[in-house]
């Protein structure tokens, strides 16, 4: 018995080392990006502090971070080059820009799925070697989720969306700075077939020539424009690259979504636990508060607050995204609270709550330790679904010209910008972001469904543990 355990532990140690090694390798591949990201974030925070307008020391560190080689970067696998009559210059291995870009984008996703696999392997290793209990109630939940195809579909979509947001700068064929914000400050070289020579042009000028405006002038998906630039999703009505726009736009959707859902989940969970623990009058007063908040028309409130607070410092943070997240959180928690209150009340009836109360455990500890674990599942379900809703709302607001301030890319704005051309050859400008929004929202809902079925196979008796799976005494 002892021998077997020691053996198991020993083989576990070997596997753990291998696992750690792979983890280190995966990290090193992207170490530069991680360092740059951290520094950029720090600089943003430093600059956000009123009165600080330069972060010299941090900027120095940032450029140092940038010089760390990173596999999945534009520098390592460049796709922006030009044809000089005989071959491609400045692209990865002299490949065509489309191929170079495709290699980079594929590698990004291979890497992301590699990370996911590494995490799963780590959990398996922990479960088989290090965890003392052979089985815990959570195992069943995970196993059920694993065999839930719709939920897995959602998980994959959500994972790909998150990857998109995280690797946005590396995924686009060009950058926001070069292609949009500072298009007149950058120039590119291209092969002019008429003169038969390599010419140089300012990006802004090139954009004018590559605009998609219907049938006579169009750069559709998966094509090159006149300046040898490759556009996986075509160009927008102003000649900018749609793919780059959408990749960077996914970031703001995700950040606002996660921030608002995180905030409203925190509010909803603490209030649901308080109301379930104290019941009676406390519960009643919370019902009244949430009814009052619910009675406010969310859209009008959003429009009003974005206008009223439009000129304040709070609207400057993250192109107004932070303000949006706050408004979403403070108007949206009520729906989640409604959904969590039922399960929380159900848990509060369990006798282990009374047992803990009878031996004098503090109310906050009881809520956190004995009640919260039972509603985290519901938090995930409703969180996932609300996130989908938040992404739609953000897109909807930008579509109306509200919300995230231009020129920060946002999916809804792309739909808006392209709507005049939907019935022309430039249909892609509206349609592609529209499809992406639908797909991502469906993905979040599917994930929510999957988690719900995994937590609660009968979808009624919450927390009813399937007994009998354990070893009887």
């Amino acid at each position, binding site marked *: 018995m002892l021998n077997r355990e020691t053996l198991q532990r020993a083989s576990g140690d070997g596997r753990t080392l291998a696992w750690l090694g792979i983890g280190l390798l995966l990290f090193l591949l992207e170490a530069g990006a991680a360092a740059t990201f951290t520094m950029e974030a720090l600089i943003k925070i430093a600059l956000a502090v009123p009165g600080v307008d330069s972060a010299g020391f941090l900027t120095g560190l940032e450029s140092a971070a940038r010089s760390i080689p990173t596999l999945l970067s534009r520098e390592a696998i460049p796709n922006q080059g030009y044809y000089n009559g005989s071959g491609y210059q400045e692209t990865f291995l002299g490949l065509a820009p489309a191929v170079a870009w495709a290699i980079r984008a594929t590698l990004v996703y291979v890497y992301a799925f590699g990370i996911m696999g590494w995490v799963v392997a780590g959990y398996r290793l922990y479960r088989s070697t290090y965890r*003392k*209990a052979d*089985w*815990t*109630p*959570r195992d069943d939940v995970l196993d059920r989720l694993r065999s839930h195809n719709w939920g897995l579909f959602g998980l994959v979509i959500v994972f790909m969306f998150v990857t998109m947001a995280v690797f946005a700068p590396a995924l686009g064929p060009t950058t926001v700075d070069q292609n949009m914000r500072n298009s007149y400050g950058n120039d590119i070289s291209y092969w002019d077939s008429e003169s038969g020579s390599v010419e140089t042009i300012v990006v802004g000028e090139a954009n004018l020539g590559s605009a998609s405006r219907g049938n006579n002038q169009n750069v559709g998906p998966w094509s090159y424009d006149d300046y040898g630039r490759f556009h996986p999703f075509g160009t927008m009505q102003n000649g900018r690259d749609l793919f780059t726009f959408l990749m960077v736009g996914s970031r703001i959707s995700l950040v606002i979504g996660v921030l608002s859902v995180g905030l409203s989940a925190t509010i909803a969970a603490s209030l649901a636990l308080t109301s379930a623990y*104290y*019941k*009676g*009058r*406390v*519960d009643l007063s919370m019902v009244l508060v949430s009814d009052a908040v619910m009675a406010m028309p969310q859209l009008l409130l959003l429009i009003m607050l974005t206008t009223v607070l439009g000129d304040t410092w709070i609207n400057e943070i993250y192109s107004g995204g932070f303000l949006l997240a706050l408004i979403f959180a403070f108007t949206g928690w009520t729906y989640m609270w409604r959904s969590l209150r039922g399960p929380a009340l159900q848990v509060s009836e*369990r*006798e*282990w709550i*009374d*047992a*803990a*109360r*009878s*031996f*004098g*455990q503090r109310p906050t500890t009881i809520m956190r*330790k*004995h009640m919260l*674990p*039972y509603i985290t599942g519901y938090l995930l379900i409703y969180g996932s679904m609300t996130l989908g809703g938040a992404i739609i709302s953000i897109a909807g607001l930008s579509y109306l010209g509200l919300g995230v301030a231009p020129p920060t890319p946002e999916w809804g704005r792309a739909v808006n910008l392209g709507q005049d051309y939907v019935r022309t050859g430039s249909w892609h400008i509206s349609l592609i972001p529209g499809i992406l929004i639908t797909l991502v929202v469906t993905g979040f809902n599917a994930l929510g469904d999957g988690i719900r079925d995994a937590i609660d196979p009968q979808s009624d008796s919450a*927390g009813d*543990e399937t*007994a*009998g*799976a*354990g*070893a*009887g*005494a």
Partner: protein
Amino acid sequence: MSETLLEVENLRTVFHTDKETIHAVDGVSFDVSEGETVGLVGESGSGKSVTARSVLGLVDDPGVIEEGSIRFRGDELVGGNWDQHRGDIAIVFQDPMNSLNPVYTVGNQIKEALRIHQGLRGSEATEKAVELLEDVGIPDAARRVSEYPHQFSGGMRQRAVIAIALACDPELLVCDEPTTALDVTIQAQILELLDDLQREEDLGVLFITHDMGVIEETADRVNVMYAGEFVESAPVDELFEEPRHPYTRGLLASIPGRNAEGDRLPTIEGEVPTSTSEPTSCRFAPRCDYAFGACEEVHPGRVRVGDVDTDHEVACLLYDDTFEETPPEGGVEAHGGESA
């Protein structure tokens, strides 16, 4: 003479709902001393669990203790003073699946109580938890301490629940139907364990059940509860030999084996009514075989019956000298609803 632990006097616990006020516990009084087991018996809905929850200060809004006093070692608890005696009174619930949190190991839950009441942490707490599991008769306790509740059988789980209760080092143990969810052999083992523990630690026990058979084995003194009131209180032998109240007689008649005649057990027809107002009649009257005219008009008070030194009280007009009616001779075994 052992000391009195718990004194409950004229306890009234009511629930204010939108429509009405429910008098769940309507003026009950009893004491529990060290080493004594006081039984509380009645059907479901009679108010026995609310009595237990009142004693522990676990009555939730909209319920409230409206009147009366609960004293522990002389200290008044009503009015939110439970904290000074937290842990001195521990409770064992009916359903062991429900009273253990399935997401934590059994050891974790024992240690939670140990930390609060004995200030033990870390390995010290683990050792003590193993010791407690051994005390309640769980074999291989050192391994079992890190197992989850679902890995325990029903009886083992109830032993673990008792271990948690003991971790608080209580003086009074409230057992709310502790054996109802278990099968008969396990039930007997748990009762035996409770009995041993009580003797070792000189615990006072408030034992709540609907099962007269269990009461006969465990209790020293019995209170029969009906619709929020105690209709009869007596030492256990006296109660089983000379039950006075028609309800008690009905309960006794429905114990298997006590009733030789007939192949069917007699049952008491109907259900416990919900008391929503001050009583103006005997609450048992609609189900009582001996009811007479006055039962509909007068709320019976408690009267002393039997020998002077047996502490036997009953709330029934048959024993009230103001009324002509007298109790039937020879007990009620012959009686008790031929229905069912």
